[in-house]
């Protein structure tokens, strides 16, 4: 969406620049329990995008007064490693990181059973190790796995993916190149078992009739990612196949 032209065609003969079809996700790998100290943790790689999530809590608030009488306080940080991007990113939180920390926190508030843990804090920390598009939806997918790994009760697992528009066509799970030279990026996250959307944004321009279409495509992706989440949890914890 930079207004510049892509160095490679984003669509050619129905295929995307990396050979995928419009509805294809990038290859995904997930692991849980990868950190020793955190109460729960997860690692997720989708294409070249790579994130690590850790969860601490429910625990005492780090600061007196940072509690609610009827539920847990969620603290959430989405943060990019300085070496995760093309140009080195200053480690101080950017305005973008501050906004994304907020929308990810609000997405997770909808699924965590916070009322079970009044007067405590639950911390969700996500680090982007490599950024190649779709980092916020990767972050939320990994965060949800880390919460499950920490044994924190949720209404359902959250998975996310972005739908983009390139050369006038909607495509699933855009990467950085498609994001940069495409026309739109619509990240969506939801709880597929409950058919609930918990994150929804749009960066770019789409036609009115494309909105329901894009949402439907995102949901297809979300269901596939959710299946992988279940699988990796089952491998460690059994059940819920």
């Amino acid at each position, binding site marked *: *969406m*930079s*207004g510049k032209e892509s160095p490679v065609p984003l669509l050619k003969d129905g295929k995307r620049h990396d050979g995928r079809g419009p509805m294809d996700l990038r290859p995904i790998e997930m692991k849980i329990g990868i950190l020793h100290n955190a109460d729960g943790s997860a690692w997720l790689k989708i294409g070249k995008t790579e994130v690590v999530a850790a969860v601490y809590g429910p625990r005492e608030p780090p600061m007196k*007064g*940072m*509690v*609610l009488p009827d539920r*847990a*306080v*969620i*603290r*959430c*940080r989405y943060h990019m490693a300085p070496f995760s991007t093309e140009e080195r990113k200053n480690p101080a*939180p950017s*305005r*973008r990181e*501050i*906004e994304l*920390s*907020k*929308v*990810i*926190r*609000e997405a997770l*508030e*909808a*699924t965590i059973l*916070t009322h079970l843990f009044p007067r405590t804090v639950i911390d969700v920390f996500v680090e982007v190790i490599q950024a190649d598009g779709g980092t916020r939806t990767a972050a939320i997918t990994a965060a949800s796995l880390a919460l499950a790994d920490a044994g924190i009760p949720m209404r359902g697992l959250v998975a996310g993916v972005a739908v983009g528009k390139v050369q006038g066509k909607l495509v699933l799970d855009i990467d950085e190149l498609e994001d940069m030279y495409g026309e*739109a990026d*619509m990240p969506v996250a*939801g*709880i597929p078992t409950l*058919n*609930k*959307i*918990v*994150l*929804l*944004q*749009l*960066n*770019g*321009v*789409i*036609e*009115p009739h*494309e*909105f*329901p279409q894009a*949402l439907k495509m995102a*949901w297809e992706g979300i269901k596939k990612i959710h299946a992988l989440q279940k699988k990796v949890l089952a491998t460690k914890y059994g059940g819920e196949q």
Partner: protein
Amino acid sequence: MSITPFNIPIIPKLKRETILSLAKRGTRIDKRRLDQYRPIKLTLGVAGKAHGSALAEIGNTKVMAGVKVEVGRPFKDLPEMGVLNVNVELLPLASSEFEPGPPDENAIELARVIDRALREPGVVDLSDLVLIPGEKVLVVWLDIYVLDHDGNLFDAAMLAAMGALLNTKVPGYEVREDGSVEVTGPPRPLPVTKRVVSVTIGILGNVFLVDPSLEEEVVSDGKLVFAFDEGGKLVGLQKSGPAWLDLDRAGPAFNLAYSKYKELLDVLEKSIAENSPK
């Protein structure tokens, strides 16, 4: 880091019940229909030293926007583009909940949603703001000043922003032979190519409330902000707040917003017409 707000008054559950039961009967505490805006007013040219300014009022909500245009450097990767900066200040004047200090996550989210809705459809033609490619360009500072917060800051801020941009006269910069830049020519309008407005829908359970008042926002789960350009294209969208949204209610929400955007566009058009030289 984002933290669940914990320094807030307890949410009045009874109020929520009242609003929900009124909604079932199609009405609201202030007698509005579910899809009805409060009175909207847009006044241009409210701050004399700004290059452009506007005051938007939606009910008791008051948001001012001011534009200053200055000479600066382009971004390294966009040498042939001017720069647009959008900043929001949630002034402590506006609400007993706002404390003085640098923009918090709410101010930053508001600024970024408006920034995207302006930037993505190319509302300001940044390519028309270049003095010396790669060296000197015009930098447009759009400062949004929230003066009174009675709910629905997004729509009021969007309206004030558009009003201020359309009200902006760019000083007549000229590049001299030695590369220095001076104001010599007459001012010209900022190249604004499109009009954009936003429509915000409050979410309470399964109820949608267009243009939620502060009273309604406080008991809501969250909101959906849709931004449209004058042709009805969707140019921005944000779920804000811890709400969730039924997958099959997303379409109806969009349709509701789509049915309202022209009202705001009309307000914008009218105030521009009133303000333009006859």
